[in-house]
């Protein structure tokens, strides 16, 4: 298990804005995802854990090993940290074959064991046939598997991955997720993964830490975070919500209901703990939670009429964008049935409503 408390400040310079990293987190077994926009400090966290960057203060503990302690002036070099690192460009040594890359990593093991181990790894990661070739002579998938195998051959206590699926095409990406799931099952090495891809968090992450400007703004399982973003900033970072300003008009904890005023319409919602009548809040609802139908007669409860401004085809369905900035997702077949609707109604299911 990794426990880290990090603080590092980069003063403002004429050629660069200041930046300060200040966070505390734990990563147990499984995959922990560091999610955040570029410049949020994700890679800096990895580099501090790996020992490439020295934090100003804090403490990094990996299992029972103290890797860094600002107060005690402990700062182990990367060599002594037992952290595997898979770089964004894989950083396979270009002048060595895939096998030599693995041998280089295994060199601290006894000779006999070394070769057995290298062969095992080549087999596990389906690299036996490509073992004699250099990195630039093999496929992207093989390069990727080799870089993971190379990091794992030293039996690290933690595996660090820096946007490993960045720039990969879809099949390669899917293959990579499979490899990483296999790693999780076979090697039991805790993984700390940096990404700014939300799908990746759901594919791989048991735990998710959301970073913004050097601070953790929310942590938890990806499902839980998507279900209830901690605040409007997190919701914006996740980029998966309709965020609509509104006002709370009524709250009834006994019946677990509320009324929310959105523009000229009033919606029924669940009770919102900790909120008061009259609060101006942001309604937060995912596009796939909205139910869209043709307008026939008067709108029912929680339905609002809205003109459709455009539709966008997405891999898993259609995205409908309505005037006023509301977007809704629906399956392709459903859209084909409804495409000739003249007027539209959007229904906000009461149970799906969240406010921030």
């Amino acid at each position, binding site marked *: 298990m990794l426990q880290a408390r990090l603080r590092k400040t980069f003063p403002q310079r004429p050629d660069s804005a200041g930046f300060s990293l200040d966070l505390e987190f734990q990563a147990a077994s499984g995959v922990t995802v560091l999610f955040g926009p570029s410049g949020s400090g994700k890679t800096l966290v990895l580099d501090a854990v790996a020992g490439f960057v020295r934090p100003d203060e804090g403490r990094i503990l990996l299992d029972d090993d103290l890797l860094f302690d600002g107060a005690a002036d402990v700062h182990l070099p990367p*060599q002594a940290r037992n952290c*595997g*690192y898979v770089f*964004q460009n894989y950083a396979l*040594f*270009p002048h060595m074959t895939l096998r030599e890359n693995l041998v*280089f*990593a295994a060199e601290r093991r006894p000779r006999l064991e070394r070769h057995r181990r290298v062969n095992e790894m080549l087999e596990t990661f389906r690299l036996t046939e490509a073992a004699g070739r250099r990195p630039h002579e093999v496929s992207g998938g093989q390069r990727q598997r080799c870089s993971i195998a190379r990091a794992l051959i030293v039996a690290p206590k933690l595996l660090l991955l820096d946007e490993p699926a960045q720039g990969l095409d879809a099949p390669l990406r899917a293959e990579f997720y499979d490899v990483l799931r296999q790693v999780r099952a076979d090697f039991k090495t805790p993984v700390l993964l940096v990404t700014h891809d939300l799908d990746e968090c759901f594919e791989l992450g048991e735990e998710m830490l959301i970073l913004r400007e050097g601070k953790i703004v929310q942590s938890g399982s990806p499902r839980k975070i998507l279900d209830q973003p901690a605040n409007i900033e997190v919701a914006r970072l996740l980029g998966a919500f309709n965020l609509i300003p509104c006002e709370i008009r009524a709250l009834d904890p006994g019946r677990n209901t509320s009324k929310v005023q959105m523009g000229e319409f009033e919606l029924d919602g669940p009770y919102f703990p900790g909120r008061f009548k009259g609060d101006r809040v942001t309604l937060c609802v995912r596009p796939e939670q909205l139910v869209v139908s043709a307008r026939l007669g008067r709108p029912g409860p929680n339905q609002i009429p809205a003109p459709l401004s455009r539709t966008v085809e997405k891999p898993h369905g259609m995205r409908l964008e309505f005037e006023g900035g509301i977007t809704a997702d629906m399956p392709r077949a459903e859209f084909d049935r409804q495409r000739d609707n003249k007027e539209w109604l959007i229904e906000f299911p009461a149970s799906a409503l969240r406010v921030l």
Partner: protein
Amino acid sequence: MPIDWFPLWLSLRVAVVSTAIALAVGLWIAYILANREFRFKEVLDAMVTLPLVLPPTVLGYYLLVLIGRASPLGKIWEMIFGSPLVFTWKAAVVAALLHSLPLLVKSARAAFESVDRSYERAARTLGASEWRLFWRVTLPLAHRSIFAAAALAFARSLGDFGVTLMVAGNIPGRTQTVAVAIYDAVESGNGTVARTLVLVVSAIALVILTLANRLSPR
């Protein structure tokens, strides 16, 4: 009159030894300049580069003061080897080194700095010592540029005149390098010797520089 080829052989020998020393010392300095952060780092770089811009007489003067028979270094040398350093072919090596070392350090530093940092980082996370990292990763990845730098240093060593004259002198058959011999030949009106040596030296330098260019990564 037959041409005395000794100066050419001497110059080649001086260049080989000086390039070897420049590699041994210069790669180390260049690696430190490329990888370590410390105060006065750019001062160190400037000091190494200084001989490229100073007049040969200034350098010769420094060397005479530094390794002359009366200097501490000169005395230690004489104590160990039983003969003075100045006015021997070894002094010519020192003179050549003054120019080959800066050239090598400059190019090697750039070569080391152009190696993608992630390779070195990867090697470190794999537990490689700094020593193994240098020999197995950084140097192999930079080897083409390093060869090119060594070729350049070799070519420069071959052509030193002023400093060599001041510290090694012009003793035919002992310290007379090809550059000095050409000067001698011109002064004494020996046109054939001068012409031949000039053409041979130019040809050698041209071959080496072409080699250096072909080795440099594009």
